Every structure is written in structure tokens, then in C-alpha cells.
């Protein structure tokens, strides 16, 4: 087990190893669902939730079933199945019991199964030999880092609808150039600050 402190893991997860801008995980939703702040917030909320759940579930699965049985090579397939099932289950429960939450967050749930951010967080947890608390912390931190960037990006893109953009830049090219700027800001600002 790695002995990194929880605070360091948290800061790394949020800023230094930011999923979207530095690790390139979850970019599909980053360019797809950031057209307005509301959807971005909903998506991020769903990601934070599922990421935390998935980190917990996969840690338990990995440590208590796969490792004792020496079946680490099945980890990928079982993780993805567990995540898919988890997302589906959460969707069912939320839709039935908390319709208000479902309306604001639930429609983003199916997107998450194929969001590499969640599976990425789980795999990184396993690879970094994190313990239970560390895994969960990393899951939450990655989710928060994701949320921050999604909100910033969606606010910028929402504001960009007010200005004139060259027609060939509209849409994805502009999104990528914005991501370039955000990523430059993140890389330069956070990679030097000692934690």
C-alpha cells in the first residue's frame, strides 16, 4: 500500500493530475456536455457520485475477491461490468425514488458508463496501490477536479455564444483551443507549487 497522505492525494487528484486537462480522461463529455453550465453541473454531479461509488465498489471487489482468488487479470472486465451495473442501478433507484434529482442529474448517468474518467479513476487506484481511504479520496478528488474544469469550461463556452467566432473555429476547434488555454493555466500554475 502506498503511504501518500490523504491531503496530497486529494490535491493531486483535483489539480496536479487533473483528469480532463492533464490526464485526458473523460474528454468526450468535456467537449460534448459543456455547452451550458446547467448540463455541465449535472454531469459533474453525476460523475462525482459515480466515481466515489465506483472507487469504493471496485476497491472491495479487487481486494476481497480478485486478489485472494489470484484473478487480477479479470479486473478490467469485472470493473467495467460493476460500473455499468452500478450506474444502471443508481439510475433505476433515483428515477423511481427521487424524480427531482433524476431530472437534474439522472439523464447524465448513462453517459458515465462509457466515460473513461470513472474507469480511469478505478484503474489508477489499483495501479497506485491505494488503500481504502486513499482510493475513496482519490475518487472524490478526481471528481471534484473534473467538476471544476467542467464548470469553468461551460461558463466560458456559454459566454462564447455571445461573441462572434470565425465560422471554421466554431464548435470543436474552439473547444480544443479553450482546453489548450485551460490546460496551460493548470499545468503551469499547479506543477510548480509544492504540496
Amino acid at each position, binding site marked *: 500500500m502506498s503511504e501518500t497522505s490523504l491531503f496530497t492525494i486529494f490535491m493531486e487528484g483535483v489539480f496536479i493530475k487533473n483528469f480532463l486537462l492533464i490526464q485526458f480522461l473523460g474528454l468526450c463529455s468535456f467537449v460534448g456536455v459543456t455547452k451550458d453550465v446547467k448540463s455541465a453541473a449535472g454531469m459533474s454531479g453525476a460523475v462525482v457520485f459515480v466515481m466515489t461509488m465506483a472507487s469504493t465498489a471496485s476497491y472491495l471487489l479487487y481486494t476481497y475477491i480478485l486478489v485472494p482468488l489470484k484473478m487480477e487479470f479479470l479486473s478490467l472486465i469485472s470493473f467495467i461490468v460493476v460500473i455499468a451495473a452500478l450506474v444502471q442501478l443508481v439510475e433505476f433507484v433515483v428515477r423511481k425514488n427521487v424524480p427531482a434529482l433524476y431530472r437534474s442529474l439522472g439523464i447524465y448517468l448513462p453517459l458515465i458508463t462509457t466515460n473513461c474518467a470513472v474507469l480511469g479513476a478505478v484503474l489508477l487506484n489499483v495501479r497506485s496501490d491505494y488503500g481504502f481511504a486513499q482510493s475513496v479520496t482519490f475518487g472524490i478528488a478526481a471528481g471534484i477536479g473534473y467538476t471544476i474544469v467542467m464548470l469553468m469550461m461551460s461558463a466560458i463556452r456559454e459566454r462564447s*455564444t*455571445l*461573441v*462572434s467566432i470565425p465560422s471554421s473555429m466554431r464548435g470543436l476547434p474552439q473547444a480544443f483551443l479553450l482546453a489548450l488555454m485551460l490546460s496551460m493555466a493548470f499545468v503551469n500554475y499547479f506543477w510548480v507549487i509544492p504540496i
Partner: protein
Amino acid sequence: MESKRLSKLPEKVIIPLKQHKGTPCVPLVKKGDKVIIGQKIGDCKDDNDSSVHSSVCGEVQSIEMAPHPDGNKVLSVIIKTNDSTETVQFSPKKNPSQQELIEIIKNSGIVEHYGVPTQSVLKPAGKKIDIVLINATSSEWVGGKFSTPEEYGMQMIDALKLLMKAAGASKGAIVLRSDDAESISAFERVKFEGKQLQVSPLIGNRKIGYYFKDQNSDIVVVSQKRIYGKSILNFFTYNVTGRKVPPGCVPADVGVAICSVKSAKAVYDAVNEGKPYYETVISLEGLANCPSQVLVRIGTPFKDVIEACGGYPAESGKLIANGMRTGVAQYTDEVPVTKTTTRISFQKPEDVQRDEAIACTHCAMCVDACPVELIPSRLAVLSDQGRFDECRKMHIDNCIECGECAVICPSKIHILQLIRYAKNAIEKAYEDLPQKESSNLKLGCACGGE
């Protein structure tokens, strides 16, 4: 300052049958009829309209659509004038009752400068007015028919009393502009109820209520910073009385009636002399030989006014009715002076600003300039892109159309025009959707929806 009657009688006058907001009047004359000064030629349909009187003697040439200074064509009575000065019998009424006063105002066709007939301002259906304000800030000191400043002050106060009586209001105030030394001095010379009048400034929390108490009087004269604006009324009400008018409501909803100097004077004349509203004082600007103010018969085309004052100083240019800030530029000088006309200005071509609009740089100068806490730059862009729903969410209805944003914009964007464009579109799209949002928790305004 004295203003002269226009020296030359125009060849023909164009009297629009709609000089107020609402439905046009029903014409009482037909082609070929002879009319005399003061004769009623258009009758109002209901209490929210205002009747129209002839300002000259002559013969009705036609009744047709003619240009109006507001920019569109309206049904107008065109009268060919003759030199006769025959008038109808004026019947002054001493000490009228409230009901009689309203009748007099209605029959005299008095209209506020913002287009609402005075009687419906003073006695709106189903609403109670408890304070009457005379707004002397946005239209100039219309001293035309007052020979001396004392007369002006006295008449205004008498007029205010009449208005208060007509509205059944207990309190009244005259609001002057704080940089208008002439008016202020005119009022400071007036004695009222044995006391010297004081012009009190409205600063910060010292709204008008403070002065009612402070001076222990029901009538006060106050002064405030100049504010412009077409739909200024709600803002003006808040500034003067501290009462917040919820969006979509009018000052009458919070018990305030706002009159202009002109209509106050007209009411005074209608009561004391029995004269209907057929002539008005307008100020002039930018002409070759230009007196600052003239007394003009309603219906006189701008062309005649300008010719009588020396004509145009240049071959082309910009002719503006009602002031540089909020006025309407005219594409023809065949438009008549109406009851709501206050000013005719002319800009030489070299003074006309033709800066090309560039993209908004988000400099936020308009945000700082806006008196009602809007974000004009964003409203302009949204309007430009046709996103009117979002304009509405950004409280575009609060805009008082003062034009400060367009004045200051370094990108020279036509912000005000865009905002008005959006407002117009919203009005059309949401005609049947009354505003349900109320910001006023205390007054329980009926139209707001608390």
C-alpha cells in the same frame, strides 16, 4: 424666459387623431367642414383616451394617414388654415369638484408627455392615488406662457393643488432638476401658505417622505439629478418616493401619479380659462436663427416651425423631435407638432455621428452607466442574436431607455436600439403573458402577484 408665439400661421395643420397611447379618436368632422380654434374634432372612445381639438380656423382638407413624429403614420385631420382668430366659447370653472375636474381634463384633451392621458394618470381605474408628482426634470422649464418666474412658481403650485384634488391625493410634490438654477430660483421666490418655499435636494435616503415631515407640509418642492428615459416612470417613482414599482406595474400601482409641467399648466389653463389643449410650448435647437422656445399650435408641421425660425442651417442633416437623448429622428419635416412634442433639434451633417460599430469588448462601461443595474452590452448581443427569452431573464423590461449605455459605449454599438428591438419583439411574443414576478414584498401590489 419668455417664449413667443410662432409668428407665421402655417398653411395647413396636421392634427393626428392619436396623440396618446391607446386607440385613435373618432373624428367628429369630415372633409370640407369648417372648424374654429378650440373646436373638438376628435372624440375619445373611453376614459383612457384623450380628445383632440382644432388649433386653427379653417377648412378640413382631408382625413388621411399622415406621418407622426413617433415614426409611423397615423390617421390625421388636415386643416387648411385661414386668418380668422375665432374661438369657441371658453368657459372657466371656479372651484370645481373632483369629478368635474376629471371631466374638464378629459374634455380638454390633456396628455402627459409620455403619452398617457392625464385623467387616467390621476384617476386610474381601480387604483388609489395618494401622491402627485410634477416632473420638471425631463422637460425643460417650460416657461412659455408665464411672463415672470413668480407666476411660474405660483401657477405650478396652484396646478399641483388642482391635480391633487382631481386625483384625491393628500400629498404632492414638484420635482426640479438640481442643475436647473432658473427653475429653482423661480420657486425659491414663491411664498406658500405664508412660508418661504424651499427647494430640497433628494440625496440618498432623504426621499420625499422625509421632507413632508421635515417641512410639515403636504406640498414640497424637491430637486434631483437629471434622468432621461422613455419609460422612466418606475425609476422616477423609486428615486423620488422610495416606493419600488414591481416589474410590469405602473406608478399608479403604488399610489403615485406623475404629471409634467406642460400638462399641469394645461390643467391650470383649462380650469381657470376654460381653454382646451391646443397649443404647446416647444424648445428649439440647432437652427439658423433659433429662439430657444416658441409657442406652437398643435398640428403645425415641423417645416413651418423651422422656416419661421430661420430655416435649416445645412442642406441635409438630422431632424430630431423630443431631444437628443431619447428623441426620434425624423425622415420628413412634414410631421406635425403634437401634444407630446417637447423639443425640435437639428444636427448638421458634420455633427451627425456615424461611427461604425465594432464588436463588444466587454469593457463594462455601460454596466457602470446603467441606472437600473442591467448589463446593456449583454442585452444588446442577445437581442442581436434574437435570443429574446434570455433578454427577458436578464430583466430587459426594467430598461428605462435612457440611452446612457449607447452614449458611453466605446465600441459605438447601438445598444439602446437593440434593446428596444428586443423589447418590441418580446412585447409582440408575450402579449398575453403578464409578468408574475414581484420584487416588492411590502406593498402587495395587485398587479405584481405577491
